[in-house]
């Protein structure tokens, strides 16, 4: 039925195209031939990807790859940096059976959903344990759904604490190891007039808030979801973390506007010199030390995030990006070759040095050049994943975002907010 309609439509379209005298002469038909294997010459694969920390890196990686593999050409389809826009594009293209992109980069929280809905190809055959054992285990785990590997980690991301080295020194304060300590030091610095705000983080109603909360929750010793899908959010630990979230705003340690901050907004406040502490990803390091963008060049230190006694030490939300293969790709072998290159020592070292991204290849951290390039390569946080092992994670996250934001802005008490979020999440997870 559907096919018949499509054919009819195609006929109509063509008729319309003929009827309209102004139909453009340049009816490029790249679309038609795209993705079909050519009988001779190099194979071309299409790689769709949002940007890395800077725009040119993807093409440079491709150039390196094509030099090593002249039999494969890689065509880059750039996507905007909005994760939602990227997912939109992939869902549309792949659910329609499009053979391109062959390889695409996607968020660390996608694999379960993409696997369950046939948007990602199972990859165990091409990336056996012997290969994945060389990568960060937490990142590989996040790409595994029901025992099968659906994506290959590319680079990872982790939340860190940025602090004003100069201010801590001047007021003789240690780098905070617990959240309570951070709170007190922030208040002290504010009272002495050193900074306007104590601590800034990502408090807008979006995925970033879930990352920040995941860290506080782990630091308090709690979690949202057990690996078997049981909801564990309804706990004193979660209430404690939520209360702290609210206390930050109520006390003025965090600005009221923190509830609208995404990564760039929180970074701006810190880079302007208006805040003593910042929670952000490693990319912030390069920005904070660039005089074009920052007023605190050379005054910033980095540490693992604080925790509470008895909780996870130095928790860091697992972020990062993966490489997926389109199940309809006509060039799976070439795609696999390309992905293998992207996790090779050469490519991993390249994105660490040139992009400041955390490699997923464990051996990259032993490289002297990498270790000395950025301070965070030497930090050892405890990586905590968001509960993205349920295919309904996007919906779970969206419920959690609303509840956390309501708590942050004082629309609901921490205890009530956590209770309601737990109920909703139970429904979402049970709904499969």
């Amino acid at each position, binding site marked *: 039925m559907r096919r018949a309609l499509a054919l009819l439509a195609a006929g109509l379209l063509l008729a319309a195209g003929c009827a309209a005298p102004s139909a453009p002469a340049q009816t490029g038909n790249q679309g038609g031939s795209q993705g079909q294997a050519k009988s001779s010459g190099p194979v071309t694969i299409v790689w769709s990807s949002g940007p*890395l920390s800077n725009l040119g890196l993807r093409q440079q990686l491709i150039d390196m790859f094509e030099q090593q593999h002249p039999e494969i050409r890689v065509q880059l389809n750039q996507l905007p940096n909005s994760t939602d826009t990227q997912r939109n594009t992939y869902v549309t293209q792949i659910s329609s059976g499009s053979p391109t992109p062959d390889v695409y980069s996607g968020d660390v929280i996608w694999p379960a959903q993409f696997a369950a809905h046939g948007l990602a190809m199972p990859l165990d055959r091409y990336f056996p344990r012997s290969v994945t054992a060389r990568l960060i285990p937490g990142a590989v785990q996040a790409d595994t759904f029901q025992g099968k590997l659906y994506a290959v980690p590319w680079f990872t991301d982790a939340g860190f604490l940025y602090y004003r080295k100069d201010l801590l020194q001047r007021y003789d304060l240690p780098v905070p190891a617990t959240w309570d300590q951070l709170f007190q030091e922030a208040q002290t610095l504010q009272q002495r007039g050193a900074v306007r705000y104590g601590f800034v983080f990502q408090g807008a109603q979006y995925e970033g808030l879930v990352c920040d909360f995941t860290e506080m929750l782990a630091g308090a010793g709690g979690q949202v979801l057990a690996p078997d899908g049981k909801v564990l959010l309804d706990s004193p630990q979660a209430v404690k973390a939520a209360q702290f979230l609210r206390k930050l705003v109520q006390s003025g340690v965090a600005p009221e506007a923190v509830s609208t901050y995404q990564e760039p907004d929180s970074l*701006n406040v810190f880079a302007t010199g208006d805040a003593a502490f910042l929670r952000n990803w490693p990319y912030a390091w390069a920005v904070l030390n660039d005089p074009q963008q920052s007023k605190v060049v050379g005054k910033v230190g980095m540490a693992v995030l604080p925790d509470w006694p008895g909780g996870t030490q130095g928790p860091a939300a697992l972020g990062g990006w993966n490489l997926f293969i389109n199940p309809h790709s006509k060039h799976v072998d070439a795609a696999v070759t390309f992905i293998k290159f992207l996790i090779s020592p050469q490519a991993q070292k390249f994105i660490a040095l040139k992009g400041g991204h955390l490699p997923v290849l464990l051996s990259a951290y032993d490289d002297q050049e990498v270790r000395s390039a950025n301070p965070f390569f030497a930090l050892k946080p405890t990586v905590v994943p968001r509960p993205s092992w349920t295919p309904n994670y996007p919906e779970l996250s969206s419920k959690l975002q609303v509840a956390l934001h309501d708590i942050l802005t004082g629309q609901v008490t921490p205890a009530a907010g956590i209770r309601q979020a737990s109920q909703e999440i139970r429904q979402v997870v049970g709904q499969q």
Partner: protein
Amino acid sequence: MTRLRRLARRLAQGVLLAAIVLFILGPIAWMLSASFTRPVDLSSWPPHLLPPVPTWGNYRDAVASQGFGLYLRNSAVVSLLATFLTLLLGALAAYPLARMRLPGRQVILVAVLGLSMFPSLAVLLPLFSLMQRIGWLNSYPALILPYTAFNLPITIWILAVFFRGIPRELEEAAEVDGAGLATVLGRVVLPLAGPGLGTASILVFIADWTEFLFALTFNSQAEMRTLPVGIALFGGQYLLPWGTIFAGAVIAILPPVLLVVLFQRWVVAGLTSGAVKG
């Protein structure tokens, strides 16, 4: 007394207009200023209304970004052709709907309007499938045809309303003189509907020029990309270079503004020639 009142009214009018214009132009002025501001000066309290250290850097970055000129050209080709096609088909369709006693034309008008009431997101998937099946992805028609189809409804409505506003006697006089339908349309109706045509062209062109979703999804290859998608590619992961984005947007706004200036001439010309004939 009356003069005084008239003066007061003019004054009130002027103040009101000034307030509206200020409201409209204020944010534009701010964006313009931000596009000349260095990133490091963009966040400050109190905010800088003028760049403390003016720079062309953002414009350099925007224009030097990969393919900016190409995207500009693609946008121009797609928007101009789509606007022309929309106006042509729209005018042809609006005339019988406005003037001829076609049975069921009310139903047609409502149905046409209904077509424009579907969220474009909701038709994204089936439309993509369609484009893929006929092999039109990454081509100009992949955008021109959808832009035409989705802007035709409002164009037909605008033109039908303006056609109906033309005194019927003029057409009848022409017909009595032995003019065929083509002559009536080309010499009498279209010139007299100048303001309607001008308005519709501007609206359709701007809608095409700023469209993002279809452009992103159907033409994902760099060679076929349009400007709104190109501007969305500025920045890195977690990085939004405001200055560069605003600079790109300022450049992107020049073609439609230029076109409006041209159209205004044309619209005014159409009006006066109509008046002469009338």
